[in-house]
């Protein structure tokens, strides 16, 4: 069974003349992206991909991405691949990329390594945190003011998701300390069936606001809200998929990570970037983190609630309200 070596030799002999795809010109500005899942799904991975596309469009950079499917052993190699090909910026989309970037970074001082959802700040490795607990805090306020009880459906128990739920709970409790909230982790980002049943159960027990944070699987939660009729509402989180349930979506939280990334990458590109610490995007970055209402919702958020939410939002931006501990 000694075929693998033979195959390679044959392929090498036959194909080197055909030539592999040539590397891009060295002076082009290049950005690479590492995502832990599929960019095809709504949610976390998609926002990074959209950001990459914006960098391409607005800064004229050459871009590339690779999906590593929660495979930490491949992270370091992927960073090295990009850095050794002369990529100027490489974004690792998730805290789990932090270690690998730190290991590689010293060998490539000319490359900037950005890590999403991380507090790292070490030379050319810089954490970018989108603090979703802030918009989720607003959703919690809305839920407690307009709903009876809420249910949160998460994918895996990881910090970005835990923090967002913490924000939601704190927001709701700031209005009504006894507001009932239940949480379920389905243990998967692909099992939309389980996510839907989790939401159906919550709705049956009286929740009329269900909020997903489970990437692709979260669509199951939206579907559950839609089937339950106009009384049950949800939020579209990270990206705008109001269309999936227009009458059941109270509001949309869009993380325009692209805007934030474009801002930073353009500074890196023209050499004006000076980081003093890791970067946190919050509601203060109104071009990055947007929260809007859906007026087509069957239970559209009333004006007095909107005014209150606006107050809370200003409080968060001013630093007067802490959306989560730490």
């Amino acid at each position, binding site marked *: *069974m*000694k*075929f*693998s*070596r*033979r*195959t*390679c030799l*044959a*392929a*090498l002999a*036959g*194909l*080197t003349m*055909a*030539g*592999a*795809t040539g590397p891009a010109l060295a002076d082009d500005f290049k950005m*690479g992206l590492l995502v832990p899942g599929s960019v095809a799904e709504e949610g976390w991975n998609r926002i990074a991909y959209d950001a990459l596309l914006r960098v391409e469009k607005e800064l004229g950079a050459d871009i*590339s*991405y*690779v*999906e*590593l*499917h*929660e*495979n*930490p*052993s*491949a992270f*370091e*190699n*992927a960073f*090295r*691949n*990009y850095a*050794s090909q002369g990529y100027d910026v490489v974004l690792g989309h998730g*805290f*789990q990329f932090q*270690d690998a970037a730190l290991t590689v970074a010293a*060998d490539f001082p000319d490359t900037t390594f950005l890590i999403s959802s991380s507090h790292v700040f070490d030379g050319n490795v810089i954490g970018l945190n989108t603090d979703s607990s802030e918009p989720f805090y607003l959703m919690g306020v809305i839920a407690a003011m307009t709903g009876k009880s809420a249910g949160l459906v998460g994918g*895996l*128990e*990881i*910090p970005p998701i835990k923090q967002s739920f913490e924000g939601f709970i704190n927001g709701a409790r700031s209005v009504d300390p006894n507001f009932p909230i239940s949480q379920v982790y389905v*243990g998967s980002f692909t099992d939309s069936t389980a996510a839907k049943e989790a939401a159906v159960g919550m709705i049956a027990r009286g929740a009329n606001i269900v909020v997903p944070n489970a990437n692709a699987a979260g669509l199951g939660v939206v579907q559950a809200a839609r089937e339950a009729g106009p009384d049950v509402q949800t939020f579209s989180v990270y990206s705008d998929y109001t269309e999936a349930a227009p009458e059941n979506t109270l509001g949309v939280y869009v993380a325009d990570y692209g805007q934030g990334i474009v801002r930073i990458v353009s500074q890196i590109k023209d050499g004006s970037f000076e980081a003093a610490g890791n970067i946190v995007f919050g509601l203060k970055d109104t071009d990055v983190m947007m929260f809007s209402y859906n007026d087509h919702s069957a239970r559209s958020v009333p004006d007095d609630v909107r005014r209150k939410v606006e107050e809370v939002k200003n409080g968060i931006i001013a630093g007067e309200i802490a959306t989560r501990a*730490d």
Partner: protein
Amino acid sequence: MANIENERPRAADTDIMGNAMSMLVRIAQAIALPVAAVLVALICGGILLSLNGFNGWDVFSVMIVGVLQDTRSIAEILLKSIPLILIGVGLCVAFRCSIWNIGAEGQLYAGAVAATIVGVAFEGLTPWIYVPLVMVAGALAGAAWAGIAGLLKVYFRASEIVTTIMLNYIALIGTSYLVTGPLRDAASAYPQSARLLKEAWMPRILPPTRLHIGILVAVALAIAFYVFLFRSSAGYAVRVVGINANAARYAGINVGRNIMIAICISGGMAGLAGAFEVAGVTRRLYQNISPGYGFEGIAVALLANNNPIGAIFSGGLFAILRSGSELMQITAQVPQVLVSVIQGMVILSVVAFGVYRFRSASRSQ
């Protein structure tokens, strides 16, 4: 029955020249057919790409040639092949015993957890002791996890296909619990274990690449288990049980014990693979440390005709395909999932070319 390797029909001439010729023919067949099968799979992959608006030629120019361009990329392929070879070799033993261990993924996690627990515990230990200790811990944990399925089969006749699948889920969920709970790095909010102590890291053999001693261990174990299976009486007993358990029992072989041996070897190898992943590559335990090596290992073993030496090569091939698919996505934006299609095609083509006949031949009525 003793000569399982040579079941392909051959001319019954006693002439030495004729024997040598038929041997040459057999060797040529053994090499040419898998090569042809792999080519067919790649061509199918290329056609699939072309039909869907990509450049089909990339399958060859990027996927195969591209990944073999320099020392580092070759080292990365060897690194990826370590768990595949280990798991593949272990499964060769299990499959030869007709134990359908589908649980290598879970056994890998069990090994990774044990290696982490040991790898963060003993400060100040010399690497000469610590490194082997981590390896042994991983292998024992993997063997123990597989052993559960073995005991359930031997004492309760519970199908190992079912129990090992269930144990996969339990190991994955258990790991998720451990890294978010008891094993979580106290200094971090993230679901990851503390970093393994430096003395527990697998020594690297080709700096600055990440290639570590695991590749040597994997190859050595492949040879060792080849010898075990085909040159030792213990391995012979394992194979006899695999061919016909009733006949083996009649011949006085302890079937239950051989089942336990085979399943624990396969589990131990998967556990060792898990130990290598945390102590050699990631250096921390995460919720997901395997992209499905345990399932790919099944294909590695089967492609090698359940021959441990062959698993070295089929493991290497699968590592190339995996690296190549990553590179394809980077350079040509081809969805990485293409690798599954090509792996599936490789298996089917091998089957279609009739290379893989061993089990069919031994079991058809």
